[in-house]
């Protein structure tokens, strides 16, 4: 890996955020974690991230709003949405807002996420 990819995890559930952080860190990515959408947006504004792993249901600013904000700003990073919302409408909406992938957290092994992050 010539250059270390910088991954931002936007996730309010600390255990899940931590698991992702551990795994991705283990896999050799530079990982930052935001506790909610607002923090995520603040970080994105200041730091260049290669990949954003974004949860949807979050306090303060949720994932949809993050995507909306990013979309309106015009600088859309590579966003993979990780959510436990399984309705098709949510997926469609997220993809329409510019997210690249959508995964249901419970159905998705960490290995798949690592694969996706590596691919990105």
């Amino acid at each position: 890996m010539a250059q270390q990819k910088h991954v931002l995890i936007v996730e309010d559930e600390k255990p899940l955020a931590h698991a992702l952080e551990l795994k991705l860190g283990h896999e050799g990515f530079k990982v930052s974690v935001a506790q909610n959408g607002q923090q995520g947006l603040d970080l994105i504004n200041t730091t260049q991230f290669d990949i954003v792993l974004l949860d949807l249901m979050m306090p303060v600013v949720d994932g949809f709003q993050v995507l909306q904000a990013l979309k309106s700003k015009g600088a859309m990073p590579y966003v993979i949405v990780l959510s436990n919302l399984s309705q098709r409408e949510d997926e469609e909406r997220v993809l329409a807002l510019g997210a690249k992938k959508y995964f249901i957290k419970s159905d998705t092994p960490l290995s798949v996420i690592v694969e996706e992050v590596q691919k990105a």
Partner: protein
Amino acid sequence: MGSHSPFLVYYKNISVMNNKGEQTVKKGSASVTLLDDRTVVCRLSGEITGAIVKESMRQTRLLAEQIQMHSQPRLLLDISKITKQTSEARNRAKELRTVGFERIAICGGKRSVVMVGRYLVRITSIGGYTKFFKTEKRAVHWLERGDIQVDDNQLSKRAVTAVLVLLTAVGALIGWQLGVSPLTSIIPAAKPMNPMTALTFLPLALTIILMRKDWQRSAWRQRVALFTASWCLLFGAIVLLNFLFNTGVGIDSWLFVDKLNSGNFTGVTSPASALSFMCLGSILFCLLSGQERPWQQTLLFILSGVVFLQAISILIAFCFGFEKIYTFDDYPPMPINTAIACLLVNNIFATLSRSSGISARAIKGFYANWQALVVGLLLVLITGVAWQQSIHDVEENINTVAREAYTKADSNIQGRLTTYIDALNGYKGLFSASSDVAPNEFHNYFANSGLSTNYPGFTIFSYAAVVPEGSKKTFIQQTQARASADYPKFAQYTLYPANTNSIHYPLLYIEPNDANTAGYGFDLSSETIRKETLEKARDIGQPQASGIINLNVSSQDKNAPDNFGFFIGLPIYQATGKGDTVPISLQERRKLIKGFVIAYFVNNRLFGDLFANVENKDAQFAVVDQATGKEVYSTKADNVPADAPIKQSSIFEVAGKQWRLDMTVSNTYGKSDLYKFLPSGILVVGLAVSLLAGLLIFGQLRRRDQALQLAADMTEDLSAERNLAVANQRKDEAVLSSIGDAVFAINTKGRISLFNQACETISGYTAKEALGKMYGSILRFEYEKDGRINDSFIREALDGHISSMKNHTVLVRKDGKRVAVADSAAPIRDARGTLMGVIVVFRDVSKEQELDRAKTEFVSLASHQLRTPLSAINWYGELLLSGDSGKLSKAQHEYIQEIYDGNQRMIELVNSLLDVSRLDLGKLTNQPTPTSMQELAESVEKELRTSIESKKLKYVKQIASSLPKIIADPKLLRMIVQNLLSNAIKYTSNEGSVHVTMRKAADSELRDAKLDIDGDYFFMSVADTGYGIPKTQQSKIFSKLFRADNVRALDVEGTGLGLYIVKEVVAKLGGRVWFTSIESVGSTFYVILPFKTKTASSTEKAVGPRKPQIKT
């Protein structure tokens, strides 16, 4: 717009071949049009047959039904141009079945003037929704605006009548008081109206004026009428008693003095007038009683008839010149004025009785055809007048002719006699010129005068000398001395017959002398008439004619007609030398009288010649001696009866004698052939024309009547139908109102024709506001998201398809609020399949939506919240198992693996539950995308690869090449494939096999699955060599949460939801799923799906998407 043209014309031309082989064309037509968007116009004209009625009313019905989709139809039925209709047409009209009209106007057109009366009758017999109008304009006006104020014809008629009667009566009274006879009788010299009669008409006129609407309810009006009725009866009774028993009450002469015939008042009221008054009084009593029972109606009819007949007979008699009616002493008729007034009053009473409910057929029939009667009667009266006039004219003509003939005869006589007198005067000159005239001188003068040749009828000219008794002998001697060869008779000349007169007038000369020699010497004084005539002539000095005498004194036949005649004697006086031939004084005349020149006339010859050129078989002239009154001569006229009246007569005087010339004529005298037949011709033709005209109008009335009857039949049925239709409509409305869902219907034009109560509640509009309006202006259906109009479902229904409203539709209420609605629309078709409109059912789904939303949110929330801990377990398990946090012992690894696997099952269970929940909620919609089943199968296989490998299963897939993509939601397809494959793997023991087949479905498979053989279907089977399904449990295998006993016993993990999901999804996509299974051998599941799956179905619930509001 539906399939109907708005303008329909129906013509019926029927060729009819009669038995002679001639062809006639019967023509009748009917046109059915729309006047405006709610009025149907049906026009019938010509000869109307049953077929025309049927067809026209069918078209009317069609149009009416169209109108009914949005409003209550109205009908304008034009029957004015019907010339004839068959009985079949009338029967057809009765059979009619049609929709209810709000109003029906029948218009009879402007043509006929004789229909007014008819209408009045009809209007009273047909009420409600149907009305008759004379003009189309009025009919349309009524249809558009409702009842219009119609002038009370009866009222104005009554007022006019009352004024006429009043004028007649007042005129008569004034006439009597001021002695103006024309005021008492419109016909001069006819019998005048009696003043008491006139007085009686005053209260009658007043009563008529007071007889306005509801007159029976006003007490004082009733009292006036009561007084009038009583007075009429009383007065009539008095007069009749007076007439019958001669008990002169003398009321007339007591009250009135006849100024016309002063001091001699004889005019009593005629018993005919009295009878009429009694009848009128009785009618008034009947009307006052108000209860018109059948016997009263009959009585009214009889009384009315008596008055009518009496009055009309007077008019007829007068017009026909039966003047003798006025000379009846036994039963004096009523005067003309009274008759007219009686007719007027009677007519009003009759109409009053009709309008107050008398339905006696006779009166009705009479008044239904009164125009015919009136016209007929008027013509009869005119005929009478013309007949009289023609008789008068002929008489006038006869008189003229007679006068001419008479004048001619008269002047003939007078002229001739004057000529003779002139001739006599000539002789006078002869005798004056010489003292003694010789016989030959006399003869020569006579011969030269030409009297005998020019004037036939003239008999003898003679000269009688005046011989006193004393010189008688001398005279005889002198005369005898004159005897010569020419006058040999003088030789025996003597006077005869002998008499004792002092003066004798013997004939001396007689010319022509050849035939009358016997007369020489006849002494004229011997006979009284002759003597007196001559002496009178002597005294007056003028020619004097004698009375009728027997000229031939010597004749044997004393009565021979030719003997009778007369003479004119002219006195000759001796010359006085004074130059005057006639002495002035009587004494001188008597003294100087010398003789008489006498001209004799035989009546028959003279008058026969005179009347020769006026002789006529039809006219007799007679000359009468005025002195004796005896007829002297009469012309021969065979045709003149002896007792014929004298037509012309005059007295003329010739030579001091008066004669009368009478002229009598025969019946045929002076009448040409035309005149002979003119009066009777006029009478016959006039009466025939009257009868014909009466019949013609009667026929016309009958025809109108029949047309009206036709219309009435049609419309009466229509109104019955209407009531039925209204009743049905009410029933339908009641049913529709009680439906909780909103229901409204529109016609093909989009106008609302039905709007139930739920509709009112949901929309906020009332049915009244909505009916008849375009649905778009009342009910605005919008897309929830963007507010665009969403009424495609209605338009689809108008195109004939059943359709449901798209999801996310809201209805904008009247108050502007938006209500979520679910809706379906279906076309309405009539029995023939013609689209008539659309019925739309919708309901307020806002509450359902709330509920659904709550459920969905709960499921979403539950699954989301469950997944979070599952994810944590999943990921940390994975982290441990992958050894990222250090190598685990074998036991640790094993335990963690169990945790991990258990967690996986938990996730799977949650997912399945979620799927089932969504299926049950109808949330899993098919969003078709072309999907490759091969790729999908491979993706699933990849997921399940671990299990396959761990169980060392033989996995065989047999996928047909070039298999088309299925147009279906990949997620749904995936559910099918994933569940079936995972089941097969799960329930197959180690080293078993799983066989997957994908291809197009064969026809036999489609037939077995009861699917459309022509369709394009996908076939998939998944066969395993697993545990199979026990026979007893195969029927339950697709049930929710069902797991077969054998697999449960084997402790194979499973949720019992997979096959349920498969079944539901396959059904949703319009496919079939079934299986074959033998326990312990294996199962095969078969799925058939259409390549093009259904998008959405009407069973889907209209629940809008909503982001779950989940708070963490």
